[in-house]
């Protein structure tokens, strides 16, 4: 895009600045719109599985429900508790929301359509997602109230635990792709199995890693069945208890933005990203971004499906799953994958 603005006669710096800002807006604005719509989709799926109708009043089929909710929270009064630590209380939701947007910079939407094509793309995603916990911790601590505080404690322990196994799972993918760059990882998946199936997920050695990644992703984004930090039967609403108005809405947007990011990572790392599922020339007629969106939507359906059907974990069970099952399993697969790659001369 920089080249386009340069062709309009702008110097390189100005062209770069304008194209970067345009790229950011091109990602962030559709993302916000899709977060609003995906909340509606989530509620509809959830309602369908509970044999209810779900939102159906505002707009045709209730499609405008999220916008009505948005307007409602926008018009509410922002209440800051007297005992709260005001600055940190207000920074918390901003951190959550900003961090959610930041990670999208390295997701490839099509071949070459990537805002920041950096060598350490996957590490950047890990770094940014490890920042996400600060929003929760700051909110929980600054609220100066016991349930938000419990929630912040739970969230930090939970996210650190599952990040460890996510790290090992990603190592398997990186070993096979030979790069941390997300664009290279996607192109490495072209015709990965039998020369026709696009995606590491079709590989029997990496498929179990995808299952682990999906479950760890649910824990990392604090979705049901791992939504212990906002377990309403125990902690009121967790770290969001004291929040109202736009501060609450930022948490809400951040949470769903994170879920969409996890779905995008599932698609990009294991199921070929913007590539069609089969390496057939006809399928490439469909633009890559459509394939990516379809995959994201499918994984979001899986997330909603799990949320609607699986009961919440108990805290010790969550820790046991993370440390005693996922960590050894993912370590074992790092051995298996690297052993297989060495034996077959992948690195030669």
């Amino acid at each position, binding site marked *: 895009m920089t080249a386009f603005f340069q062709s309009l006669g702008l110097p390189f*710096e100005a062209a770069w600045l304008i194209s970067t800002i345009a790229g950011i807006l091109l990602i962030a604005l559709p993302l916000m719109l899709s977060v609003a719509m995906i909340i509606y989709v989530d509620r509809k799926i959830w309602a369908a599985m509970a044999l209810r109708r779900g939102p159906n009043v505002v707009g045709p089929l209730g499609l405008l429900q999220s916008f009505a909710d948005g307007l409602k929270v926008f018009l509410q009064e922002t209440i800051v508790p007297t005992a709260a*630590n005001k600055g*940190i209380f207000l920074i918390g939701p901003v951190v959550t929301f900003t961090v959610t947007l930041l990670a999208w910079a390295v997701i490839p939407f099509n071949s070459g359509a990537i805002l920041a094509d*950096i*060598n*350490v793309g996957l*590490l*950047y995603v*890990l*770094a940014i997602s*490890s*920042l996400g*916990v*600060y929003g929760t*911790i*700051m909110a929980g*601590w600054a609220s100066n109230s016991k349930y938000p*505080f419990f929630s*912040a*404690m739970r969230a*930090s*322990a939970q996210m*650190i635990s599952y*990040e460890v196994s996510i790290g090992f799972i990603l190592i398997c993918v990186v070993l096979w792709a030979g790069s*941390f760059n997300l664009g290279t990882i996607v192109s490495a998946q072209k015709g990965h199995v039998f020369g026709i199936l696009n995606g590491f997920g079709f590989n029997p050695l990496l498929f179990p890693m995808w299952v682990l990644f999906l479950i760890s992703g649910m824990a990392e984004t604090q979705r049901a069945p791992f939504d212990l930090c906002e377990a309403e039967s125990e902690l009121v609403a967790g770290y969001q208890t004291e929040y109202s108005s736009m501060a609450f809405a930022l948490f809400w947007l951040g949470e769903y933005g994170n879920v969409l990011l996890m779905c995008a990572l599932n698609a990009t790392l294991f199921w070929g990203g913007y590539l069609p599922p089969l390496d057939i020339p006809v399928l490439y007629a469909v633009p890559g971004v459509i394939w990516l969106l379809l995959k994201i939507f499918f994984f979001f359906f899986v997330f909603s499906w799990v949320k609607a059907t699986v009961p919440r974990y108990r805290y*010790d*069970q969550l820790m*046991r799953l993370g440390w005693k099952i996922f960590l050894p399993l993912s370590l074992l697969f790092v051995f298996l994958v690297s052993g297989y790659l060495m034996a077959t001369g992948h690195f030669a």
Partner: protein
Amino acid sequence: MIQTLAFYLFAALVIASAVMTITARNPVHSVLWLILAFFNAAGLMILIGAEFIAMLLVIVYVGAVAVLFLFVVMMLDIDFATLRAGFVKNFPLGLAIAGILLAELLFGLGAHSAGGLVLGTPDAATAPAANVPNIQAIGAVLYGHYLFLFEAAGVVLLVAMIGAIVLTHRQRNDVRPQNISEQVKRRPEDATINTRPEVGGGVKL
């Protein structure tokens, strides 16, 4: 131009947040300022082209170490009056440390003005490779030239970790842990019986 601006922005923020770290009254604020300092230091690393180190700084220090700091500090029950009470007692010690730091600083400045230290020239194995991503370059040096030292460091860390686990582990006999595989294996037949008792006969448990 942009690089110079970015450098002064990051550097100024590192120094400012480091100052805030030690001057902030509330320890939780201190840790948050420290996190900001780490984050800006990562920005400086990116400016000199060490993107791998920058990402590691964020993942390890900001993502893990600082979370644990915050975790511990948030749990502390701080009485600000007692914090200030020890000031007079600890003042000489603090003054001594400040003196040592000042001496080191002056010494370093003197050494700097006397001319740079002549280091050994890098040989072929440790010379930075051109046009190779950070990760590959560091990996080639760590797993090639310094393989033994690197693995020795790993073993030392492993021993430390096992030592910490052994020291803090305690056997408790008064708890009944959950055995999930046993629970999953349990079938309805193990837990229920179907009987047809005589009228007035009752059931024997």
